[in-house]
């Protein structure tokens, strides 16, 4: 089956006063229709940038090279108007940080209905009704009241559900969920996961789930790609990657998760301006040898999954 | 959001409409035979007993009211409503013979009784009565057209004082004063304009220009720009000093006529603190008098629109002494006087000192004064080693500093607007005990006697001599440094013809006309 979205040789660079920030480098990733692909990695590894690159929502100082094919057309070659028509309708974004992603001066209902009116061509009243229904289906208590309120009156989980509703308003084929559980407490995280589960399994939508939460990824994803310093270092079926991690970074990530004893990876992720030569992970890698500092390992495919490590 | 935008839009529209409606009178019909005059300050009314002085008010008054006598272009007192006059030998009784062909604009006849009523009205209700009225003991109507003023004590400048615009002859009609002048008050829109229409009954003849509008324009630059743009036709009290460059530009404009007349009424001089500080020593005062180059100051500030000062009164005053000896700039003399007074440059730093104290003096000026004058004096005095600190004060504060002797030098700008005789100024500032506010300024017995003589000397020749001697005494004692006298500048549109603007008088406008 042809991929719904195919990212090829994507490279996103930010031109800043301090230098060129390589936020994503040589990314190849296919997302098949109906599948949920998880993109995991530490904060600052470039996974959110990848998500925003797909929708071309990056600030003006970002340069994107390569190809992002959606349903056969290269998104990077679309005109501003064409990409705008794609947004929300074909590809939706559920943004990270619910506290800042809703407009503080507009009622939540307005923020949902404007998308409904735009994409589903609903009349005002219909749109409001539909919004309430959507929120109800996301198990938001008392949705009639909530749509008349402003974001600051809602809890984080409620806001996340509003954002989910905004994302789903256009009945998109592809959802990019950018850290939907970031900063939420455990109970709300479970609620959000339920919502996302509901979205993917019941509606059969395709999703790119960007997260640093391995547990969320494990529960929702068919495939998982692990990103480190702007590169994909491991990619394969979810159970493979999480069950039998092959890249030392993936192993480290797994070991650092709360279930596995919270053993952090030593050191911290490198600045995207001055990336280390060779394998970008080698300064922090327990298995690193001399060669790791010299040779940049390619992504090797083995048994249906890919890994970027010299020892594979 | 849309609601907000709508609300903002609505408010803006309402504001715009209200502006448009309030202003929809639009461009009024151009009235052809109308003269527009710039007035620097709004008047406070047209009753001379209460209106007080505002800048430009005499222009308005000179069109509405006549006086018994006026001062002409040659600074002579000439007849206006009085045909002739005589004074008794004791100087106490002044008799005026009046014109018989004059009517007030209200239709009442002008006669001796009217003159008496007019002065009684002026004496009027104000807290500060118009000064001359306090000197009059009684006014007698000798016959219909002869009036006698009996004074409390001799007041020699009585006739000259009557030329003062504060003593117009008016009649009261419905509580409003009316005059005999060439124009009649039609409308006063406070803060904006005063409209006058011609007096068909004017005793000299019917004025040619139908309407005169005084437009109130406080800013001097705006006034000249309005003249250039043709929005006004006449500027009377043009303050030349700060506007030298502007005047030169206006003179090149083919539309405008710049009429300058050398004037003795606006003079700038520096006075010394005679009682306290270094200038209690006459030699120090003389040194400063020699050190300051008045010619240069004048050139710099007003250029050709003024005359350099030598003595207290300008050489153009009828009371000036033509060959008077002043202090022409002479740095050697200045230095000699300074060292005589004990000021030496003992530490060779270019600044003088005495007993270890530097020669440092304070010059107080007001914000309305021309700061450049003070700055020039400062740099000229620095050349002889005297350090001057300029203190720019508000008018009240400067007055206070002078009153309390908290100054060494003060800049005085004197406008003698009270008639043809400058006696008031001398009496107020230089006569002992006349006004305690000027206690720190030069006084001496000879000067006191001379100033008293100004009031008892009726003979004009003698008066001139007294004035000349006063000025000599002031110079001998180096009581002040005389800098320059500003010209009286009148600017008008070339369309205005047959107009002779002389000092503070616009009554000649009655025979002027506007060329098409």
């Amino acid at each position, binding site marked *: 089956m042809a991929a719904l979205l195919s990212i090829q040789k994507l490279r996103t660079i930010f031109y800043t006063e301090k230098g060129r920030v390589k936020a994503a480098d040589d990314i190849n990733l296919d997302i098949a229709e109906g599948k949920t692909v998880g993109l995991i990695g530490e904060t600052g590894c470039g996974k959110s940038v990848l998500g925003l690159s797909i929708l071309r929502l990056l600030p003006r100082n970002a340069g994107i090279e390569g190809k992002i094919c959606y349903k056969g057309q290269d998104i990077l070659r679309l005109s501003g108007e064409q990409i705008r028509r794609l947004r929300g309708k074909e590809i939706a974004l559920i943004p990270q940080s619910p506290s800042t992603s809703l407009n503080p001066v507009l009622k939540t209902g307005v923020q949902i209905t404007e998308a409904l009116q735009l994409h589903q061509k609903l009349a005002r009243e219909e749109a409001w009704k539909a919004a309430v229904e959507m929120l109800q289906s996301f198990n938001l208590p008392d949705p009639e009241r909530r749509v008349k309120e402003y974001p600051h009156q809602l809890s984080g989980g409620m806001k996340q559900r509003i954002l989910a509703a905004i994302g789903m308003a*256009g009945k998109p084929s592809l959802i990019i969920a950018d850290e939907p559980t970031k900063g939420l407490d455990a109970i709300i995280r479970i609620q959000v996961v339920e919502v996302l589960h509901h979205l993917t399994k019941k509606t059969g939508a395709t999703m790119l789930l960007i997260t640093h939460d391995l547990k969320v990824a494990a529960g929702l994803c068919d495939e998982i790609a692990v990103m480190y310093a702007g590169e994909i270092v491991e990619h394969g079926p979810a159970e493979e990657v999480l069950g039998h991690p092959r890249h030392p970074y993936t192993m480290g990530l797994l070991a650092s998760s709360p279930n596995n004893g919270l053993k952090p990876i030593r050191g911290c992720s490198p600045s995207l301006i001055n990336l280390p030569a060779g394998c970008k992970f080698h300064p922090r890698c327990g298995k690193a040898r001399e060669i790791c500092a010299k040779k940049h390992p390619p992504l090797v495919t083995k048994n249906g999954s890919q890994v970027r490590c010299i020892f594979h | 959001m849309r609601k907000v935008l709508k609300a903002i839009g609505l408010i803006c529209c309402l504001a715009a409409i209200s502006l448009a409606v309030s202003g929809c009178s639009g461009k009024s019909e151009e009235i052809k035979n109308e003269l527009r005059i710039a007035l620097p300050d709004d008047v406070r*009314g047209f009753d001379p007993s209460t209106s007080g002085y505002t800048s430009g008010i005499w222009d308005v008054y000179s069109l509405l009211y006549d006086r018994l006598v006026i001062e002409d272009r040659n600074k002579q007192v000439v007849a206006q409503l009085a045909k002739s006059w005589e004074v008794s030998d004791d100087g106490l009784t002044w008799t005026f013979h009046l014109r018989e062909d004059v009517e007030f604009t209200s239709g009442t006849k002008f006669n001796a009784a009217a003159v008496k009523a007019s002065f009684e009205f002026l004496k009027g209700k104000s807290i500060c009565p118009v000064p001359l009225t306090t000197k009059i003991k009684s006014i007698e109507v000798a016959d219909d057209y002869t009036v006698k003023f009996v004074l409390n004590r001799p007041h020699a400048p009585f006739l000259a004082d009557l030329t003062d615009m504060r003593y117009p002859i008016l009649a009261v009609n419905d509580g409003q004063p009316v005059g005999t002048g060439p124009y009649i008050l039609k409308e006063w829109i406070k803060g904006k304009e005063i409209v006058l229409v011609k007096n068909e009954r004017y005793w000299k003849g019917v004025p040619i220009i139908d309407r005169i509008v005084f437009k109130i324009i406080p800013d001097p630059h705006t006034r000249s720009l309005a003249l250039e743009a043709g*929005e006004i036709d006449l500027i009377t009290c043009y303050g030349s000093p700060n506007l030298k460059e502007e005047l030169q530009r206006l003179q090149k404009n083919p539309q405008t006529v710049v009429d300058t007349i050398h004037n003795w009424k606006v003079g700038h001089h520096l006075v010394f603190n005679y009682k306290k500080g270094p200038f209690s020593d006459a030699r120090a005062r003389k040194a400063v008098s020699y050190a300051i180059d008045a010619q240069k100051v004048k050139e710099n500030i007003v250029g050709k629109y003024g005359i350099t000062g030598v003595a207290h009164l300008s050489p153009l005053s009828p009371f000036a002494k033509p060959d008077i000896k002043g202090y022409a700039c002479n740095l050697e003399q200045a230095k000699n006087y300074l060292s005589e007074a004990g000021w030496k440059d003992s530490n060779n730093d270019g600044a003088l000192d005495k007993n270890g104290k530097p020669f440092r003096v304070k010059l107080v000026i007001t914000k309305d004064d021309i700061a450049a004058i003070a700055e020039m004096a400062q740099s000229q005095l620095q050349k002889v080693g005297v350090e001057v600190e300029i203190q720019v004060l508000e008018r*009240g504060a400067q007055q206070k500093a002078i009153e309390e002797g908290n100054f060494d030098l003060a800049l005085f700008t004197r406008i003698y607007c009270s008639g043809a005789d400058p006696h008031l100024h001398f009496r107020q500032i230089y006569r002992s005990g006349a006004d305690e506010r000027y206690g720190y300024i030069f006084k001496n017995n000879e000067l006191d006697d001379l100033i008293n003589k100004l009031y008892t000397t009726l003979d004009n020749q003698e008066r001139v001599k007294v004035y000349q001697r006063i000025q000599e005494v002031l110079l001998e004692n180096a009581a002040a440094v005389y800098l320059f006298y500003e010209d009286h500048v009148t600017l008008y549109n070339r369309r205005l013809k047959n107009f002779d603007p002389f000092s503070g008088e616009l009554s000649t406008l009655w025979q002027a006309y506007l060329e098409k």
Partner: protein
Amino acid sequence: MLKCIARRLVLMIVVVLGVTMMTFSIMHLAPGDPAEMIAIAKYGMEDLTQEDIERIRKAEGLDAPVYVQYAKWLSHTARGDFGRSLITGEPVLEEIWYRFPATLKLALAAMMVSLFIAVPVGIISALRQYSLIDYLSMTGALIGVCMPNFWLGLLLILLFSVYLGLFPVCGYGGLRHIVLPALTLGTGMAAIVTRLTRSSMLEVLKQDYITTARAKGLSEKKIITDHALKNAFIPVITVIGLQFGHLLEGTVIVETIFAWPGVGKLLVDSIFARDFALIQGCVLIFAVIFVIVNLLVDISYVYLDPKIRYEKEH
């Protein structure tokens, strides 16, 4: 909301009281004998005698201690009697009331001029950051901030009235008369508001919710009008309120240059003449306007920012 406004009204009385008290004491503490200043302003300085001055001092009650004078003024004012001008003898309220519409018209026109210029230019500059338009408008704003009113006013007169003959040099009258003074007065404010609108807009455009709005597929126009503007206006509105004070201050000079018969000119004249009754009246009016404008700003602020609205209600 109503409670809040009521509280603000009480505060307003306190502010106005404070302002008048300060003006009163400053005017009395300023060097120079007030009676003499009044006498000079009223009669000219030439042949004024000390007796005249003393008479005026007595007649106007200037011989009493300052606090007694203030208390007297306050008690009269509280009863609606603003007194009479010491110089003209006209009732203060009448004098101010007569000139007030002119000043209000000028201030409103200036505000409209500056908002109509500043807000769109600021928005365009933000949307086209680092473009030629942006550089031009920011340079213009910088010049606008630096340019003193009197200089700008004369420059405008020279250009538009003397050379081009488009508008009258000065005077009070129709729409044509108000253009140049409003421009002069509004420029400084326009410059500040332009810069603020631009920076505020830039700040807002960086926010996550704008990304959300974009991701929705909204058109750029809708994003600006529906999502960015209201947020960007919040700081702008505050500054407009504060700037209104400067606007009133500016009327003092602009009214003089353009021979505009307003309260600003009246205030200056009365200060020079130490016309206490009139000064107090003018200051009172200005203070009240300023406080009211800021109250309006706060109300609109509440309207724009739901957070404040709800905090106040709960």
